């Protein structure tokens, strides 16, 4: 199609982030539904990535790695939430390895009871959710360290097909950057649209998605080059779960 060939011509510049904002938005929307252009984008992103090898290659001072690893260790020691994320199997093995046989049996009984009660609660939650579908869903978006004081809300229609995003107190970006909403399901991030905020850090816009918004589990907002990115590359400023 003529439109497709026109968009295809813009892909090399999109991969370099040098399109004007309106053109980048058109390309980002087109990429959602065009496999051919997605493949072209992947190849041009690869070219863009390789250009980094053209600069003179210099080792950073050893102090950079030392600082990085100290920062990582400090984060891990900060609290339980930041402890190493062991796999569930390793965590279970570690737990039982520390217990005597009597405690293992008692623990298994408690675990069984918890599983049963969780199943019971799960059924109740499902029933409640089914009842709640007669009302609109509201998702609160919480600020990260990169946008303290900001907040956001997503309101999803009863049928889960339409949504509206409202944000406030987000930092005003320069013209080369925009905020981008990500719709998240099973770790996959789908573009939910790009936007800028006004003088007071406020913005609202409709959310368009081919997939019902109610099927996404989380939402996030990052800072991206104007027009948006095919995947998150910048700092996350807001996030929340459905």
């Amino acid at each position: 199609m003529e439109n497709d060939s026109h968009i295809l011509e813009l892909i090399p510049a999109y991969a370099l982030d040098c399109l004007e904002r309106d053109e980048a938005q058109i390309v980002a929307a087109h990429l959602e539904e065009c496999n051919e252009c997605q493949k072209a984008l992947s190849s041009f992103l690869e070219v863009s990535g390789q250009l980094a090898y053209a600069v003179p290659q210099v080792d950073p001072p050893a102090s950079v790695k030392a600082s990085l690893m100290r920062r990582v260790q400090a984060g891990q020691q900060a609290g339980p939430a930041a402890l190493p994320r062991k796999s569930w199997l390793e965590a279970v093995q570690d737990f039982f390895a520390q217990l005597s046989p009597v405690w293992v049996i008692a623990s298994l009984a408690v675990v069984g009871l918890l599983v049963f009660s969780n199943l019971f609660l799960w059924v109740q939650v499902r029933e409640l959710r089914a009842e709640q579908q007669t009302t609109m869903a509201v998702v609160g978006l919480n600020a990260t360290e990169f946008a303290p004081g900001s907040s956001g809300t997503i309101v999803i229609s009863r049928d889960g097909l339409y949504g509206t995003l409202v944000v406030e107190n987000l930092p005003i970006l320069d013209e080369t950057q925009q905020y981008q909403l990500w719709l998240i399901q099973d770790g996959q991030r789908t573009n939910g649209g790009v936007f800028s905020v006004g003088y007071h850090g406020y913005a609202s816009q409709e959310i368009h998605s081919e997939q019902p918004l109610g099927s996404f589990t989380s939402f996030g907002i990052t800072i991206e080059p104007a027009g948006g990115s095919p995947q998150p590359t910048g700092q996350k400023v807001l996030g929340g779960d459905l």
Partner: protein
Amino acid sequence: MDYSKLDDVSLIREIALARPDALSALYDRYSRLVFSLALHILGEAEAAEEVTQDVFFRIWEKAEIYQAEQARVSTWMTSITRNRSIDLLRKRKVRPEGHSLGWEEFQPDWEPVSERSDPEALTADAIQSQRVRAAVASLPVEQQRALAMAFFEGYSHSEIAERLGEPLGTIKTRIRSGMQKLRSLLLEEQIHI
């Protein structure tokens, strides 16, 4: 586990499980690339060190969002590095005196000595650098200039056109043709290796 033997995607998965040794191995593999790009864009070692640490810390915190089907790990990392560096460059609004952001000073066979101990990885990096420099050097000078302004300085089509005093359409064609030629030279050549 010897993390240095893992491929990039496996390393990212290990980092997502909060294994500092995996981050350390990824750092050993790519810190040179990340630091070099940041240093070239920013022109100051101190700022480049800050960006390098931020890039790897972001990967530590956000490894789970990496999607292997969309880009290679090195491509993802250079994309983050470039965005961070250009952001910092814009915030400062002043570039170090005498700092050049082109390709001109890169001689195809020039490579500074590294203190890194892995000669195999160093050789692979050096070959990759030479391939990319040779590919860039084969482009017409006007295309090289436009690509450098987009890649290193983050300028848009219209900003490049304004700064070079050229028509917008000419700049768009230069960028598109340059990237298409590079894709042909770099990716097709890779397939034949």
